[in-house]
């Protein structure tokens, strides 16, 4: 299952940061998902929910933010955020917003980043 290894990576990163900051509980986890990462947020949230049982993350609210897709266009040299033609796809088709070309290089939008967490900790 694709989401399982992603979820484990996310949890490892959260726990490491939480422990380094002497957290007693994690209240919130914000995850940035590239629009082209082949991961369904609902499935990812489901498996995260299973994996965080009985950990200090157990009651954390999980927030997803989208990373836009950036491209270089080979035809008109446009550089920036692409148009995503969603059709019926979860995974969108990417094209240039200036000239509609599909002859592009995808620069960004495939990553999954644990952005930040909100923790509770004892007073220093």
């Amino acid at each position, binding site marked *: *299952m*694709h989401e*399982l*290894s*992603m979820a484990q*990576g*996310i949890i490892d*990163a*959260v726990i490491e*940061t*939480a422990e380094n*900051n002497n*957290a*007693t509980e994690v*209240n919130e986890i914000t995850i940035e998902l590239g629009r*082209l*990462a*082949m*991961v369904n947020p609902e499935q990812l949230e489901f498996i995260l929910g299973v994996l965080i049982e009985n950990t200090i993350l157990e009651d954390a609210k999980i927030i997803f933010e989208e990373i836009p897709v950036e491209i270089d266009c*080979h035809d008109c040299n446009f550089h920036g955020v692409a148009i995503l033609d969603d059709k019926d*796809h979860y*995974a*969108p*088709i*990417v094209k240039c917003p200036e000239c509609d*070309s*599909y*002859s592009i290089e*995808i620069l960004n939008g*495939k*990553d*999954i*980043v*644990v*952005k*930040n*967490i*909100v*923790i*509770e*900790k*004892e*007073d220093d």
Partner: protein
Amino acid sequence: MHQVADVEVAKNIMDANKKLADKNKKNLDDKGIFCVDFVGAIGSGKTTLVEEIIDNTDYKIGVLAGDVISKFDAGRIEKHDVPVVGLNTGKECHLDAHLVGHGIADLPLDDLDMLIIENVGNLICPVDFELGSHMRIVVVSVTEGDDTVEKHPIIFQTSDAVVINKVDLADAVGADADKMVNDALKLNPNIKVIKSSLKDGTGLDEIIKCIEEAMNN
């Protein structure tokens, strides 16, 4: 008293794989080995294509054969007298750069000039995992349905070539191979598209030429 704090994590989960993929590519570059990575659905013809390339070229080829749990593909390829390592992913639906790194370490690199990686049968998950190859070829057969290309855009937008296989069966299954060609070119005007029927060798020379062009580029 408790206090609440907002703490930056800034950890890219995909970074670990990317770094290992870069390391794999460097290891192969240091040995002068060109690496091509085949992706495609279960039954698209990836293993047959690997066998045909081995039998019809003079390259010193090593193979990493990905399978979820079995070693069937590795066993088939072994019969062609090339070094092969079978990589089992267990529950995972894709090879990753970590597994491939271990596979590369088990091959006699000094005796090779080409590495072929056959990914697990899947048109979705491998997209997220670079392996360190120099070229990615997606194999899709007409028997999967002629809407398969447009249903899986990203793998065609991020591959260097597509082999549309089993074209001899197109009429029998009511598939339009030219639609698949056009869909691939619409999604990725730079992709090299080759129609093949590996059963009778149609398209094989063109596939080998396409790999050689990338190798010499």
